[in-house]
């Protein structure tokens, strides 16, 4: 598929690429200037996850973040969307291999049953992170586009834009 986008490379910043591999798979890739040990830590410690999973610039806040990162352990993230109803997302960790691999499932009700596999690969002292999101069906991916936290986040940009525009008018 050619539905692939990249950010502008700059001297400081590594590129984030997204590729739609099939009608139910999305792959996000990025390299970080840190060893896998640190990168894995940032993906598995709730107090660190809180610092980056819901960036301020998106207008979304992470109200609570519980993650029991071990095989069979569960997670529960609650997001706030401005004045909108908070949304809770939960699921289970299926594979936890420090510092190279992390697999979790999302609950069917709130996350559409997607399986997310994250691999951390050392490349010359840096870490290449690949996030592979596999949805159970094409319909499930479509639904996630429309109602998942990503959709919520993206919608909140749009709502903010509209709000600002209406206030200016």
């Amino acid at each position: 598929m050619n539905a692939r986008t990249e950010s502008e490379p700059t001297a400081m910043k590594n590129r984030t690429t997204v590729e739609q591999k099939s009608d139910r798979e999305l792959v996000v890739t990025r390299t970080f200037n840190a060893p896998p040990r640190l990168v894995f830590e940032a993906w598995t410690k709730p107090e660190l996850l809180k610092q980056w999973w819901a960036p301020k610039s998106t207008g979304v806040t992470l109200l609570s973040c519980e993650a029991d990162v071990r095989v069979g352990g569960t997670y529960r993230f609650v997001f706030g969307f401005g004045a909108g109803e908070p949304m809770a997302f939960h699921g289970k960790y299926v594979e936890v291999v420090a510092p190279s691999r992390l697999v979790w499932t999302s609950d069917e009700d709130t996350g559409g049953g997607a399986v997310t596999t994250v691999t951390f690969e050392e490349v010359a002292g840096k870490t290449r992170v690949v996030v592979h999101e596999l949805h159970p069906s094409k319909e499930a991916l479509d639904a996630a586009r429309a109602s998942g936290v990503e959709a919520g986040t993206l919608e909140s940009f749009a709502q903010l834009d509209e709000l600002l525009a209406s206030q200016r008018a």
Partner: protein
Amino acid sequence: MVQYARADLDASFAALSDATRRGVLERLGRADASITDLAEKFHMTLTGMKKHVGVLEQAKLVTTEKVGRVRTCKLGPRRLEAVTDWIERYRQLWDMRFDELDKVFEQLKRKEKINER
């Protein structure tokens, strides 16, 4: 934000899943062309090219017009940007997350340096 109907997005993704069809779009982005031209450029039979153009036409990425015996193809009302729009926004979300994550690493590295002293 413009909303794109899901069925339309699906048709677009299906149309774009083929390298020849992506090539055809690229070419039509430069100039209109007849099916015969396109078939020649992509070393393909007329029938084969007609099929590809048909898929692109259904996805509204291409429109065709028959004048006399020649069917001319041009870019349709839906542009590639519309298709990649959702993915681009999705990418931006991860990009913002990862920018924050970079800051977390700076902080962790600083802490480790202090502890080493």
